[in-house]
């Protein structure tokens, strides 16, 4: 009977093209708007590294002035100082740890046809690669020994390797950056990051790094970070005083492979801060935090408020579209009271009438969903043009496609419930009288 009802449904939809168009269009618009915003919302908020997001933790300590908290709501600062980062790295109490900061270096290519350019990169420790798992195309990362030796090595990203070496295996070749020669030790493959979740405070949606170099080596060059730097009191004169100061400009991640290890590390942090307090630092109350990837993303509001408002608005719009559809379906089914009466008189049960009209609603829902999918595609194109930096999170993936169709059919079926119920209550006898 399903096929029969399907045919009946399609035929009745065709009989009244204006009404059908209005219904399908209404649902499509509502679905299109909702799914566009939901896609962006979902991709922005979704776990960037689901297989280990609960093991990577962001280290926060509160070395700030006792007169004012760093954040008004009392959360600890979003970066750490040089001396604390180095102390934590040397203590090596986590399963893996990597301190890092954003750095920019002029690159002086050997090839005279490529003009010198400013490359944006990251100074970090070797564990970074094991923790965040970028794929290597050639070579590999440097090791902890090279960190200790301040080795002059560099890992290039895919695009920079194309620019400098035409995409070939450049491991062992030399790159001159800011007057110093560095040896290429690895080249990354394409790293499909939606955004740089490992550095939310310094431009998560900016372009990915063009190179990585050892933290210790970068410090040797006395180059200040290109990211945020905040001090609650002016550091002393000179570079060494700056390194020794309470200015925060370093991002610190640790990998802790179990809840037990996490608890141990937190108590290590507490005792470290306790020691520093003895030395006269850390005037504020103990305020250490170890948030995992998803908790940190939420803390830093990666999903912007604007996106949240847009999702809410789009779903409110969908609601209005659905109410509209209920009205249209009601009108449609009420007009067919004669037909309903006739079919009931011929023996159709209430249940069968219900099934027929539910299927008809479902067909409207499916058509609305398919059109809505096309509109979602258009909507995402619009989002990409409005928000250049969100290009990576405004993409349709299969789960969103399935959600679109499912949401549309469910919405149409829900909208059709009341009109169908009303239609089934038609008394055959009343319709047959003339």
């Amino acid at each position: 009977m399903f096929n029969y009802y399907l045919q009946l449904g399609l035929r009745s939809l065709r009989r009244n093209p204006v009404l059908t168009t209005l219904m399908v269009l209404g649902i499509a618009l509502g679905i299109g708007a909702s799914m566009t915003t939901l896609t962006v919302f979902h991709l922005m908020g979704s776990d960037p590294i689901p297989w280990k997001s609960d093991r990577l933790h962001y280290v926060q300590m509160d070395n700030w002035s006792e007169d004012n908290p760093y954040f008004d709501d009392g959360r600890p600062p979003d970066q750490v100082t040089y001396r604390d980062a180095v102390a934590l790295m040397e203590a090596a109490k986590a399963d893996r740890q990597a301190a890092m900061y954003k750095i920019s270096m002029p690159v002086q290519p050997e090839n005279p046809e490529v003009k010198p350019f400013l490359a944006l990169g990251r100074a970090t420790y070797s564990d970074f690669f094991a923790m965040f798992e970028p794929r290597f195309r050639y070579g590999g990362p440097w090791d902890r020994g090279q960190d200790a030796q301040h080795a002059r090595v560099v890992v290039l990203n895919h695009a920079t390797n194309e620019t400098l070496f035409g995409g070939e295996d450049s491991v062992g070749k030399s790159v001159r950056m800011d007057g110093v020669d560095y040896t290429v030790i690895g080249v990354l493959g394409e790293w499909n990051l939606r955004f740089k979740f490992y550095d939310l405070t310094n431009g998560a949606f900016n372009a990915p790094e063009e190179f990585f170099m050892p933290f210790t080596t970068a410090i040797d060059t006395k180059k200040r970070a290109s990211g945020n730097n905040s001090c609650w009191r002016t550091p002393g004169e000179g570079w060494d005083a700056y390194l020794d100061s309470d200015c925060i400009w370093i991002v610190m991640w640790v990998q802790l492979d179990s809840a037990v290890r996490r608890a141990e590390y937190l108590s290590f942090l507490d005792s470290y801060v306790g020691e520093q307090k003895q030395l006269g630092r850390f005037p504020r109350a103990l305020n250490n935090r170890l948030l995992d990837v998803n908790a940190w993303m939420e803390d830093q509001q990666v999903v912007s408020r604007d996106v949240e408002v847009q999702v809410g608005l789009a779903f409110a719009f969908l609601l209005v579209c659905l109410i509209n559809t209920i009205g249209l379906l009601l009108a449609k089914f009420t007009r067919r009271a004669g037909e309903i009466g006739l079919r009931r008189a011929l023996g159709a049960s209430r249940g069968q009438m219900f099934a027929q009209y539910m299927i008809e609603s479902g067909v409207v829902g499916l058509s609305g969903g398919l059109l809505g999918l096309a509109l979602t595609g258009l909507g995402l194109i619009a989002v990409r043009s409005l928000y250049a930096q969100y290009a990576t999170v405004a993409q349709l993936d299969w789960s969103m496609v399935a959600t679109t169709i499912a949401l549309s059919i469910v919405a149409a079926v829900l909208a059709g419930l009341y009109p169908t119920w009303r239609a089934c209550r038609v008394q055959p006898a009343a319709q047959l009288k003339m």
Partner: protein
Amino acid sequence: MEIRPIFSALMRSKVSMILIGLQVALTLAIVCNALFIIGQRLDTMQRPSGMNEADTFTIHSIGFGEDYDVRSVMNADLALLRGLPGVLAVAPINAMPLSNSGWNSGLSIEPGQRNSTANTAFYFTDDKGIDAYGAELVAGRNFKPEEIGYFTMNDRRPPRVTIMTRALAERMFPDGNAVGGQFYYGDEDNDPATVVGIIEHLQAPWVGSQNIDNVMLLPALLPYGNSSNYLIRAEPGRRDELMKEVESRLAASNSSRILRNLRSMQERRATVYAEDRAMTIILGTVIIALLGITALGIVGMASFWVAQRTRQIGTRRALGATRTDILRYFQTENFIITTLGLIVGGVLAYAFSLWLMNTYQAPRLPWYYVPVGFVCLWLLGQLAVLGPALRASRVPPAVATRSV
């Protein structure tokens, strides 16, 4: 116009009435709040930066190599740029409005204060800075060439003379007398600094800052490592040609550096407010779509009712009702439904606004949005129902006599 018969007729089709009413209610609630948000964003985006934005652009130079002497390069660059035809003013800068990047710090009125009196952006520049930014000096004097020094991130003593914006001066010296006023940089720097001039208005770099109107000009060149930033103000109309000229001349004069970020202030404004502009466009689209859907819903429902009641309309016409009476009937019916919907919508609008205030610290919806929304949606409803109502009024009385 008899309301009772209309009302009782409506009560018989309660569900349809509720459906239209709900659409109107939701539309009012959403449209009022969305329009308010759009208004706020437009206000934010239109704030003047205090700069001449039409004729100015910046370029960033980064040197490389061990022997790069950034100070002599800066002096050579400034001399070169100031000699170019079409240039009104050139200044070395470290930061500018509409960029979300710069240096800010606290200032105190007494030495050794634990909390700053005010927080301000620091703009390091020379005596041509005011001209290049296009700011207006309203009190005191500009820097003298001999007062311009050098400053690096490793130095501890910022310059002793400064120029403040009016807003900052009012925060620091509420009694007036800002020119000649003294303040402290804080942080164990117990020597005061003096304000020598006041400019009317200049924005800090961060467009989301509470202290966006607090800016202090400091007379020093601030190289950041080997990099230097220049702000160039062209003669009106010559900006674009001058941008190309500046880049090629600077590149030719020194090949041990990278030139980048050649950007006009107009382009910076567009980029920094891109998200607000996007939100405005998205909200605007949703408002139009909502109004459209609701109008179509009213048209659809009204057409349906007209079709259902053709017999009744014919009967009334046969009994002496004029075309206008029928028209009025449908318009009044629509007016009642819309009004009921709008009352619910008004409550929803304020509830929604309250929720936005609590969740996002948004400001309160001003009182006049809902009444204006009422009027607009009444008009929309009346317009939407006009078509079906006119069709109804054209139903001939003879319909009453037909039995089919």
